[in-house]
């Protein structure tokens, strides 16, 4: 291969889009390293602190699409204190210096400022796509900068971000010359937008395929927009709570009927049951449906809608659907691949109208199911064993029993055997979240069978260090391990230190790890950052000594070639 001209080598590499493959070929020899790095178009950085931004930009100056992730996953549940880190600024600044050909930026769980967005908007003349997921720190002023300056903008996708709303001006900042929009998602913007500006923007965007509106957009505006976008494939509705404005709803139905390409529907913010029938015309063509923000839709409303959705592959719904509603899903949606059932109430003592029966019905009716997130108030081993047999194709299985440590609802036993069946039958399982009453046995099963497992989430589970050690020994492909409120201590932490170098990260909070144990880890493994996060206002029970040593509240360990980070706040100690 070294006798081929570089252009040929580069051409061959163009058939290897996957980052893993490109990383592999770059290790073969210096020539290949050079060819690969100069032709790399997509770079994915799973942990923004694993490598310095300057180094990425230096190595891959011609990158077109950059994807960076910041805070650990448990930050979603308020377990990571604010100001912990994950700043987008250094990444955008480095890219502005070193790869001006950047076209696409994707960021998840990062802190992005308006200044950074403005820098982004002005630094990359070919910039086309900005996707921000679960980010914070910016306002609609930052969006105004993007709208104003990114002449070729094709995609602006804001998913579940905390955005400071400074008024509707930003949407009007798209110049009249901007006609390239294909995807616009501003569902997470809290305030009003200018309906006229929105309608005009849509009217001059012939390539628009995906549009997700926010709550403020009225049925009237929605129906006007839809008349202009017959090629729309993905729609997030606005406000559907108006009472009895039957003419608006009729207009909406007429407009929806024209959208023959519509495959995916979401939004339904606090949707009224009265609006549901207007969606019926498109139900039969839908492959994706997200009803998880409609707490006032009862089981009967949901099932009426879903009974038309024969092609559905992805369904997100609230537990109001109840077991009987899930039975309708099971008998209707034979192509279902992904199901998420979210809790509608968080404060009632572990009660949900959804139980193991609903999930068993789904598993029996939907053999293609591969991705599950299921909140329920009880589960049994028998049900899990049945589910595992019915659906051996699970790649993602996340079960959350609302009451921590709750046993099998029929036998009062731990749920070890049930989850054991899942990991045994589902050989392709890559992601698993477990809950309910669980002993070290479940970890024995996981370590023995979950060979493809990449991410494991544990809460209120296990009896001893042995539990965690089973996982660390057995799960060869483990990349992310996150644990809370489980009795794993220093022995477990230090049982297999070399493994952390093969993983992206480890999170442990409210476990029994001590600072001494963390020190030992840090000194044995210099290529890891061992972050101890102690907050001043934690309840005093956590300060109790364990074997005479202070316990660590929160521990975040990750491999890195960047060394200790210099933007850590006071409450983070990097050992």
């Amino acid at each position, binding site marked *: 291969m070294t006798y081929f001209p570089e252009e040929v080598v580069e051409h061959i590499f163009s058939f290897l889009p996957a980052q893993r493959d490109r990383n592999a070929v770059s290790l073969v020899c210096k020539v290949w390293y050079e060819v690969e790095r100069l032709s790399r178009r997509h770079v994915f950085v799973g942990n923004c602190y694993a490598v310095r931004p300057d180094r990425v930009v230096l190595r891959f100056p011609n990158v077109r699409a950059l994807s960076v992730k910041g805070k650990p996953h448990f930050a979603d549940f308020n377990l990571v204190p604010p100001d912990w880190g994950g700043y987008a600024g250094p990444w955008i600044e480095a890219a502005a210096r070193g790869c001006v050909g950047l076209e696409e930026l994707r960021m998840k769980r990062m802190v992005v400022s308006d200044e950074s967005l403005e820098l982004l908007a002005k630094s990359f003349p070919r910039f086309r796509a900005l996707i921000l997921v679960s980010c914070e720190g910016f306002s609609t002023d930052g969006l105004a900068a993007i709208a104003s300056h990114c002449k070729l903008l094709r995609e602006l996708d804001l998913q579940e971000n905390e955005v400071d709303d400074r008024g509707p001006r930003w949407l009007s900042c798209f110049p009249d010359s901007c006609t390239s929009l294909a995807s616009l998602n501003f569902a997470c913007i809290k305030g009003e937008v200018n309906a006229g500006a929105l309608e005009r923007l849509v009217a001059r965007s012939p390539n628009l395929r995906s549009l997700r509106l926010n709550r403020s957009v009225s049925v009237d505006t929605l129906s006007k927009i839809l008349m202009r976008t017959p090629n729309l494939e993905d729609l997030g509705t606005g406000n559907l709570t108006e009472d009895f404005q039957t003419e608006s709803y009729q207009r909406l139905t007429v407009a929806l009927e024209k959208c023959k390409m519509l495959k995916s529907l979401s939004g339904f913010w*606090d949707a009224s049951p009265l609006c549901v029938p207007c969606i019926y015309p498109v139900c039969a063509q839908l492959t994706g449906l997200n009803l998880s923000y409609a707490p006032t839709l009862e089981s009967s409303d949901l099932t009426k809608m879903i009974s038309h959705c024969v092609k559905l592959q992805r369904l997100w719904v609230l537990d109001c659907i109840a077991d009987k509603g899930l039975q309708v899903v099971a008998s209707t949606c034979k192509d279902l691949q992904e199901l998420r059932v979210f809790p509608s109430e968080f404060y009632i003592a572990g009660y949900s109208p959804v139980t193991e029966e609903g999930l068993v019905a789904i598993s029996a009716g939907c053999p293609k199911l591969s991705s599950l997130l299921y909140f329920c108030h009880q589960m049994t081993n028998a049900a899990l064993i049945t589910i595992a047999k019915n659906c051996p194709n699970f790649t993602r299985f996340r079960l959350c029993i609302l009451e921590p440590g709750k046993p099998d609802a029929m036998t009062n036993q731990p749920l070890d055997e049930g989850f054991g069946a899942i990991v045994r039958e589902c050989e392709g399982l890559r992601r698993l979240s477990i809950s309910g009453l669980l002993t070290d046995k479940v970890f024995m099963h996981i370590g023995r069978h979950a060979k493809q497992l990449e991410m494991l989430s544990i809460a209120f589970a296990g009896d001893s260090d042995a539990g965690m050690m089973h996982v660390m020994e057995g799960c060869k492909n483990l990349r992310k391990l996150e644990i*809370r*409120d489980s009795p794993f201590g220093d022995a477990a932490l230090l049982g297999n230190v070399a493994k952390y170098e093969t993983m992206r990260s480890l999170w442990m909070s409210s476990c029994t790890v001590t600072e001494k144990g963390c020190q030992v880890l840090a000194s044995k493994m210099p290529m890891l950052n061992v972050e101890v996060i102690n907050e001043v206002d934690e309840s005093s029970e956590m300060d109790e000594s364990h074997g005479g040593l202070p316990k660590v509240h929160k521990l975040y360990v990750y491999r890195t070639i960047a060394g200790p980070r210099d933007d850590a706040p006071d409450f983070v100690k990097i050992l």
Partner: protein
Amino acid sequence: MSTSSNESPAVSGLDYDDTALTLALPGSSPNDRKPAVGWPPVRAYRRNALREEGACKLVKVAVDGAPYLRKVDLAAHGGYEALLRALYGMFAPCLAVVRGDGELGCRLLDAGTGAEYVPTYEDRDGDWMLVGDVPWKMFVESCKRIRLMKTSESASLAPSPSSQR
């Protein structure tokens, strides 16, 4: 899964224990230690979206003779009349609404028989009261759930604070 019901009223299979909103914590009795942070594991964005700005107050509504419960957001309505009209909208096939006098501004009737429904609610102390007896804001604060009762049953309610009715 069965829910316990110690004294279910003699009405169409609706289990009123089901509609009781309690602030009990996962697996423990009320007045226990505070719930675990970040549990259940639902993204902050989703939690906030379901509760809406300006604190939404969802309460369950049962209608005697109707086979399903609905939820209504008390915070989304300005007063009693708006609330009753919203309830009418939710149970539309079973209900009719007519103008009325008094606090409520209108009355809800059975669409078939014309019999009147008396709107009642359970307050924080567990007492069943007539809707409309207290100022609207006080009602929104203290209401835990609503029941549209057939007039024959309403005689057994706690006496209302006002002298009328």
